[in-house]
């Protein structure tokens, strides 16, 4: 085993131990090179999004100087050519629709109409192909036409191409720098699948009043697919690593407690339990505040999730979930944008003191680090973690 392989094994061991609620040699540190890096590299966000080779070369250049354990990835969250090929209405990407240095914007619409519920529930995958894809794509407005067929060919090719490019980049980072990836597989809460992309916030909130049975039936129909999504894709079946699940409408106070308990939670819980039955843990990426729901979340099987602390009360999270579930996060993203390296270091120390004492903790930014974060604050976060994170 060479030096890089030993480094990989050491970092992997830390990560695995913490996820299983144990105490590694040091507090594992998660890190991502996000959109914030663009302003330090003499490029534009558009270039970073469109040119995966450029984006990956920036990551390769930076990795040797960064000391962390688990990598969240580089700044390219999407590959817009795949969306452009379809004429996708879902996003505005930097350079097209928004300024070349503005982050992407999601264009939320009712891409599924209220009257579509029954057909969707009867066969979700077929409904997505026959109706959702044409609804979200200008190029698919006339299914079967030349433009439509070419668009599908190009977009599917882009899906494969980007997967190949990113797979090769991760392989290189692992072999050359001992990088451990955060996770494999991607899924969501069924209510979020419905509320984010299909019905939209306004649509799904009206549905809770006007057609609650349809909402529940749709969530039930989505659940087996979301279990599958968590273990799908490159490496998804590797149960050492968690699947990523960004959670949206379940954050307090989008829904009232009755709605959360009856509409949001049952299908998310079933998804988590379904994944756990296959040995797959979920990174419960609790964006926003989930404090009122901690007791319900504690009903999950031990170790079946890693709970991300964004603006959830960290002390309550530790008290209610600690010991049974790994906790992760603790550094507010606003601090990484508006704070100073000194303030970030103080926060890291406080977070480690409060959350890491008996293991089962991974230090990370609370949520998605935005493009206006300062590099010096990002570096201060991982330096402080190494300074204060020794057990």
């Amino acid at each position, binding site marked *: 085993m060479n030096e890089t392989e030993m480094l990989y094994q050491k970092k992997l061991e830390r990560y695995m131990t913490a996820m299983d609620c144990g105490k590694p040699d040091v507090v594992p540190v998660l890190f991502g090179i996000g959109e914030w890096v663009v302003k330090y590299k003499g490029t534009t966000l558009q270039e970073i999004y469109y040119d995966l080779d450029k984006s990956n070369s920036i990551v390769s250049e930076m990795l040797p100087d960064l000391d962390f354990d688990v990598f969240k990835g580089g700044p390219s969250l*999407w590959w817009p050519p795949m969306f452009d090929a379809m004429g*996708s209405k*879902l996003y505005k990407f930097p350079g097209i629709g928004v300024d070349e240095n503005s982050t992407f914007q999601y264009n939320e619409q009712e891409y599924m109409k209220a009257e579509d519920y029954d057909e969707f529930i*009867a*066969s979700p*995958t*077929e409904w*997505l*192909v026959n109706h*959702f*894809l044409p609804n*979200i794509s200008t190029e698919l407005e006339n299914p079967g036409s030349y433009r439509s067929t070419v668009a599908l060919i190009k*977009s*599917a090719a882009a*899906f*494969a191409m980007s997967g190949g490019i990113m797979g090769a980049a991760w392989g290189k980072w692992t072999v050359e720098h001992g990088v451990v990836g955060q996770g494999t597989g*991607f*899924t*969501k809460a069924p209510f979020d*699948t419905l509320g*984010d*992309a*299909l019905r939209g916030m306004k649509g799904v909130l009206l549905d809770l009043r006007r057609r609650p049975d349809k909402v529940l039936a749709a969530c039930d129909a989505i659940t*087996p*697919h*979301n*279990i*599958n*999504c968590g273990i*799908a*894709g490159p490496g998804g079946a590797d149960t050492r690593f968690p699947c990523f699940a960004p959670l949206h409408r379940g954050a307090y106070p989008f829904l009232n407690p009755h709605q959360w308990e009856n509409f949001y939670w049952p299908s998310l819980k079933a998804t988590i339990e379904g994944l756990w039955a296959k040995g797959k843990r979920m990174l419960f990426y609790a964006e926003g505040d989930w404090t009122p729901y901690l007791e319900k979340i504690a009903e999950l099987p031990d170790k079946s999730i890693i709970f991300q602390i964004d603006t959830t009360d960290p002390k309550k999270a530790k008290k209610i979930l600690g010991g049974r579930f790994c906790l992760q996060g603790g550094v507010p993203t606003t601090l990484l944008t508006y704070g100073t390296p000194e303030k970030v270091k103080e926060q890291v120390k406080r977070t480690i003191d409060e959350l890491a004492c008996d293991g089962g903790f991974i230090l990370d930014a609370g949520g998605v680090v935005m493009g206006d974060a300062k590099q010096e604050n990002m570096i201060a976060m991982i330096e402080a973690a190494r300074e204060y994170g020794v057990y």
Partner: protein
Amino acid sequence: MSEKEKLLNPDPGVCVPWEVKMEEFGEFPGNEAISKKEWEKLDDFAYNFIWFWVQR
């Protein structure tokens, strides 16, 4: 709705079940397992492509 277009309601990870395709092949003198395995791999890839759009 033609026979080919009737609702399949495929399981997670599936677009067109092998069993459906197998019936359409009719005579299949070769080793079914070899063809089935590759059909299902590609079918799973297509399924992931379809669900990619709704899971963002």
